[in-house]
C-alpha cells in the first residue's frame, strides 16, 4: 500500500478544518470511518489519497442509536453490528436490522460504520482492478469494460452506456424504502437531505456517486416512524448461503389494514446502479388486496424499464420474484403496532 499521512480529528470542527486545509486537491484527502472499503480500495490502487483524516472520534457525538419522539435516529458512526443488534431497530424497523446483519462478516460489521456503509463503492471487477484501462467510474471518459465484458453481477436498472456497475449495499435499500433523511455537516454548515437524494444517477458522470459537497460528513440517518416500518423485511438472494453480495434483493415495508394495502414500500438491491426505490411498483399495491397475482404485477412494474446486459438477463425475472416473495412474506408477518 502507498504511504499516506494519517490525521486524527477529535471533533467535527477539526475534521472539517483538516479537510479544508487539503482542499487544493480533493482526491488527495479522504475521510476514514470504518475503513473497510477505503483501505481495501487503497490496497488495490483504485484510489490513492495521500492523507486520511480519521473520524473515529466523532463516534462519541454521532455514534448513538436512539428513539427520538417516534423517529429512529441512527448515528452515522455507529457500527453495523451495533445497529443490527439494537432492540429498537429490530422492533421498529426490522428491515434495517436484517439488511445489516445479512451483510458482510462479523469482523466487518464490528468495524464498518453506517455512514461508510451507504457510501461503499461498487464491486464491479473492472472498477476494482486498475489494470483495466476502461472504467468511467475510475477514470472518467475511459469507457466501460463491463459493457460487453463479464457483467453477471451488474445492474439492469438505471444503467447507461457509460456505467452499468451495481450499487452493492443492503442497508441503503432499507433506508430509501423507509423515507429516511440524512443529516450532513460540511464547511458550509449542517443540512438534511432525503436519503433518496444522496446517491446520483450515473448517467454522464459515473465517477460522481453522491451529492455530498466537498468536505461534507454524514452524521446521522433519521427514519420517521411509520406503521409500515414495523411490517418490513429484507430479502437477499445471493449465489451462496453466506458472505456474498446480493444478486437481487428487496427491502419491503407494508401497511395492511383488514387485508388491504394502505402503503407499500419497495426498494431493490443488486439490480440497480444506485439505491433504488420502485415507486411505480408501490403504486400498483395501494388500496389493493395483496394476492400473489398482485404481487407479481408489482414485480413486473418494478422491472418495466429494465435493460439486460449479456450475462445478467436472469436478474430481471429473479428480481421480480424476489419482490413477490418479499411482499408475501411481509404480509404474513405478525406485527405488534403497540
Amino acid at each position, binding site marked *: *500500500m*502507498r*504511504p*499516506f*499521512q*494519517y*490525521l*486524527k480529528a*477529535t*471533533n467535527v470542527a*477539526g475534521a472539517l*478544518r*483538516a479537510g479544508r486545509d487539503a482542499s487544493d486537491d480533493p482526491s488527495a484527502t479522504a475521510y476514514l470511518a470504518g*475503513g*473497510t472499503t477505503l*483501505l*481495501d480500495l487503497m*490496497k488495490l490502487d483504485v484510489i490513492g489519497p495521500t492523507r486520511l*483524516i*480519521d473520524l473515529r472520534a466523532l463516534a462519541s457525538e454521532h455514534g448513538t442509536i436512539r428513539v427520538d419522539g417516534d423517529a429512529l435516529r441512527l448515528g452515522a458512526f455507529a457500527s453495523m453490528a451495533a445497529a443490527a443488534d439494537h432492540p429498537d431497530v429490530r422492533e421498529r424497523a*426490522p428491515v434495517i436490522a*436484517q439488511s445489516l*446483519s*445479512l451483510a458482510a*462478516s*462479523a*469482523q*466487518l460489521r464490528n*468495524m464498518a460504520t453506517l455512514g461508510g456503509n451507504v457510501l461503499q463503492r461498487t*464491486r464491479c*471487477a473492472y472498477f476494482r482492478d486498475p*489494470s483495466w484501462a476502461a472504467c468511467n467510474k475510475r477514470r472518467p471518459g475511459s469507457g466501460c469494460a463491463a459493457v460487453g*465484458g*463479464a457483467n453477471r453481477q451488474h445492474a439492469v436498472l438505471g444503467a447507461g452506456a457509460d456505467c452499468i456497475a451495481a450499487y452493492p449495499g443492503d442497508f441503503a435499500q432499507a433506508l430509501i424504502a423507509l423515507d429516511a433523511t440524512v443529516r450532513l455537516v460540511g464547511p458550509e454548515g449542517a443540512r438534511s437531505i432525503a436519503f433518496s437524494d444522496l446517491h446520483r444517477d450515473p448517467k454522464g458522470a459515473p465517477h460522481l456517486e453522491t451529492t455530498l459537497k466537498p468536505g461534507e460528513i454524514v452524521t446521522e440517518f433519521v427514519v420517521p416512524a411509520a406503521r409500515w416500518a414495523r411490517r418490513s*423485511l*429484507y*430479502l*437477499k*438472494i445471493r*449465489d*451462496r*448461503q*453466506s458472505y*456474498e*453480495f446480493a*444478486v*437481487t434483493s428487496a427491502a419491503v415495508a407494508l401497511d395492511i389494514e383488514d387485508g388491504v394495502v394502505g402503503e407499500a414500500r419497495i426498494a431493490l438491491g443488486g439490480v440497480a446502479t444506485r439505491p433504488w426505490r420502485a415507486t411505480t411498483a408501490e403504486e400498483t399495491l395501494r388500496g389493493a388486496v395483496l*394476492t*400473489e*397475482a398482485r404481487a*407479481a404485477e408489482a414485480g*413486473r412494474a418494478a422491472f418495466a424499464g429494465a435493460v439486460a446486459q449479456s450475462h445478467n438477463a436472469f436478474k430481471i425475472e*429473479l428480481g421480480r*420474484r424476489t419482490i413477490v416473495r418479499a411482499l*408475501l*412474506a411481509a*404480509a*404474513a*408477518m*405478525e406485527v405488534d403496532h403497540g
Partner: protein
Amino acid sequence: MSFQPTSFQPATFRIDGETIDATPRPGQCLRTFLREQGRFGVKKGCDSGDCGACTVHLDGRPVHACLLPAHRAEGREVTTIEGLSCCGRLHPVQQRFLDAQAFQCGFCTPGMVMTAAALDPAQRARPDRLLKGNLCRCTGYRAIREAVQGEIPAAGSRDVQAPGGRGVVDGTARFTMDVAVERLSHIKVLQSPHASARIRRIDVAAAMAVPGVLAVLTHRDAPAACFSTARHENPLDDVDDTRVLDPVIRFAGQRVAAVVAETEAAAERARDLIAVDYEILPAVFDPEAAMAPGAPVIHDKPAAVSRIADPARNVAAEVHGGVGDVAAGFAEADAIHEGVYESQRVSHAQLETHGAVGWIRNGRLVIRTSSQTPFLTRDALARLYDLPPERVRVVCGRVGGGFGGKQEMLVEDLVALAVLRTGRPAKLELTRAEQFTMTTTRHPMKVRVKVGAKADGALTAIEMRIVADTGAYGNHAPGVLFHAAGEAVALYRCPNKKIDGWAVYTNQVPSGAFRGYGLSQTGFAVESAMDELARRLGMDPFAFRRRNVVVPGDPMVSLDAGPHDVEFGSYGLDQCLDRVERALAEDHRIGGAPAGRRPPVARAAGERPGPAPSGAAPVGEASAGATPPAVGGPGEGVSGERPAVGGAGEGAAGDWLVGRGMAVGMIDTIPPRGHVAHSRIALDGEHYLLTVGTAEFGAGTSTVHVQIAAQALGVSPDRIRLQQSDTDLGAHDTGAFGSTGTVVAGQATLRAAQALADALRRAAAERLGAAVEECVLGAGGVTDGRRTVRLSTLAGVSAEGRADGTPRSVAFNVQGFVVAVHRRYGTLKILRSVHAADAGFVVNPRQCRGQIEGGVAQAIGAALWEEVRLDGEGRVETPAFRGYRLPAMGDLPVTEVHFARTHDRLGPLGAKSMSESPFNPVAAALASAIRDATGLRMTATPFLADRIHAAMRARAAEPDFTQPDFRTEETDRERHPAGS
C-alpha cells in the same frame, strides 16, 4: 488543535497486555505492524477483509487487522492470538480447538479462534453465520464447528493429536513468513497485462532511481535455461518450457520483471515505473482452436529438447491407447450413452499464498519456502543456477496448505535470483490477487465419454476423449493427462476401451497439479456417464457398479493392458458401496425404494418430501424474524435451514424435488515412476528423534509418522520427536504429493523404526548375554523378561529406512448425496452427504476423517460455486475471495464418513493413501443426485443455481415464467412433468 497529525510520530500501543512505543510506517496497516512486533500469529490470507486469518481483538471485538491503519489502534487494547492464552494456560476456545483437533494446515486457526473467542455461549451454539468471515480450506469446518460449540466427540485410542498442535492454536507455530530476518529486502513482481506479447524494450531507469531500490531484474538477468515449474522425482517427466523471466509473454499475469528494494512500498513504487514496450502478438484461448491449423504457436521450442509433444500444434502432451475394439463393443451394446462433460478452472486457494525468503549463509544459498517438495526444489535451484546441490538448502516452516499447488517452483527461483544478485536476504510473498493470476489452477477439461452396455448391465465399450487446457505452460500437463486417462476408466471391467487425450497450450494462466491430479475431471465425466447408462438400462446405480467394477483378480486397464506395478493390496470397494447405499436408503426424507430403481418422475411429481429437511442441510441465515420467507432464487440466501417452508400462497414443500446420487473413485496409492522417501530415527536420551524429508501441509502425515514409529518402538507417541522438510536434515525425499506422506514416507519411517528396534534389541541382547529373540523393546528399555537394559544406556543408536513407492495399491472412495432442487427456482440444497472410503488400515481415524471431510468440502465448492473466470482476453476476473466463492462454514453440509475395514498388504501397517481422492467422486455424485431429482443432467461444473434453473426452463420449453398468472401447483405439475 482539534486534530493531531500522527504520521511518523511515535505512539503508544497496548498489545497483548504489553505497552509498546513504536512508530508505524506511513500507510502501514495493523496486520504488518503487529507482525513487526513479533506477533506472527496474525496471518495474511487475503489482505482485504475476506478470509479472517488476521483477525485480532480491538477492545475485545474481533476485527480484520489488514483493514485497519496501525495508528488507529493507538490507545486501544489489541489482543492477538498470542495474547489470548494467559500464564501458560490456553484460552478455553484454544483448548477446545486443540481437543477437537479443529485444524489441518493451521493457517486459518488463529483468526478462527479469535473470532470464536469473542462469541457468547448463545452465539457459540450457532456459529455458522458469525464465523462466515473466517475461511478454512482444509477441514470442511466440521471439527471447527464442534470446537466452537464445545461438542467434541471423544477421541479414540488411535486419534493421536498432531505434533505441534498447541503451537497452531496458540499462534506460535511458525509458517513460512513467520521469521524475522535482518536486512531483509522485498521483491515485487511486474505482471504482464497482455496475454500474448513480446517485450521489445524494457526501461528500468526510473525504477532504479526510486530510493531504496536494490535491483530491477528482467529477462536479461535471468538464466537462459528453460525448466518446468512442476516438481517430480524425474525432471524429465515434465516439459521444459519456462524461464525465470521470459521476453515472450504467454499469459496475462506472467512475470515481466521484479524489483528488489529495501521496503515493500519502494518495491511497489518502482515496479510501477518500469516502462515496457510490448509487441502484441495473436493469442488463443480455446484449446480446440489452439490445436487447429493456423493457430498461433505458443511455444516455438524444439520438441526434442523441451519434450513438448507437438509444439507446432500447441500440444504439450498427449496420450492414446486402449484395448480391444470399441466399435465392436458399441455394436453389441443394448444401450449407449455419449456426453461431453466439462470441468472448470478452480483455484487451490490455500490460505497461505506462495512465498519464500532467501539468504546466503556460509556461502550457501538458503531458501525458506512454502513447498510440498523441498528436496526437489533444492535440486531444481541447483540446476538452474549451476550450483552444487550441497551449496543450496531448502527448508520449510509449517506449510499453510498445498493441494498440489505447492508441488511447483513458482517463487523460489525468483527469490534465489534476487539473493544471488544482491547478496541481500530477500522475500517474495504473493498477494492473493497474484496467487490467482500468477500461480496455477486445476486443468480445465472437456471430456467426451461414450459408454455402452448389454441389457444385463455388462459394459461392452468405453471411449474417452480428453482435451485438457494446460494454459501458457506445460507444468504437470503430461502427468495430469496420464492420470486423468488412468483410474477413472481402469475402475471398470470392460473388454473394449479407447482413450485419446491432449493437454493443450492456450494463452491463459497455467494449470498445474491439483488435488486429484486430473481424476476429478475425468471422474466427473465417466461417473456421470455410468449413471446415465445405468438409468438407460433401468438399473440401480449401485447394482450397475457392482456388475462392472474391477475386483481382485481383474486386470486394471486404461491406456494399455501391459504389466504395471499396481496391485490389489486390499479391496474395500464392495464395503464402500454397501455403506453408502445403506445410508441413502435409510434416509427418511425420501420414501422407500432405493435411488434409481424407481422412475424419478413418480416421486418428483407426485410426492412431497416428508418432514422439512434440516440437520444435514446447510444452515443459512434467516432473514426475517417471525416468518422466514420461502427459499428463493439462485443459490438461495435466506432461511436456509428449512427448504420446505413456504411463503404465503406459494408452492411450499411440493416445489422441492428430492433425489439421490452416487459416484465412485479409484486411485493408485502412489504416483508412478518412482517416489522415494528416507527416514532416520535415532535414540536421543529417553526420546527418539525422527527425521523425515516429507513436508506437512495439513494432511496430518506428521502425526502418522509419529504413530508409526511409536508403534514399532513400543512407546507412546509423545516419546517421538519429529523434525522434517529440511534438505540439511535427512536424505532425499521426493515430496508430499500424490498422497504419499503415509504410504511412501510412512513406509520409510516404519522400516527405519523397525531397523532401530532390531538394533536396540541386538545391542541389549549382547549386553545381557541373551538371545535376540528373547529381548523385547518397550518404553522402559529392552528386557529379556528378567533384566532390563535402560534406553538411556543405549544412546547413539540410529537406523534408516527407505521406500521407493513400488509396488502400488489402490484406494477407493464412494460418495453419496441426497439433494433437494427447487422446481421453480433451481435452488440446490444438499440434504445429506455420505462418504465411504477404503483407506486400508486407518492409522488415525480422526485425522483421516478430517482429510475426507475437507476433500469433499473443497469438491463441493468446485462443483457448486468456485470458478476462476477469465475474460475474452485471458485475464482473471476473480482475483479475490469476495468473488471467488470459497465455501464458508454455513455453506457446507456435514459429511458422514465411513471406513471400509481392510488391511493393505503393501502399505505401512496396512494403510493406504487418502488425501486427494475424496475430492474425485463429488461432482458426479452431485450431478447424478440432481438428475435423480429433476431429470436434468448437468454436464458442466459449477452447478450454479441459475444454470440449473436455465436448464430446467430450457428442458421444459416453458414459454415464459414471467406470465402474469403465477401458476398453481396443479397446472405447474401438468406442464412440468418434473423428472421427465
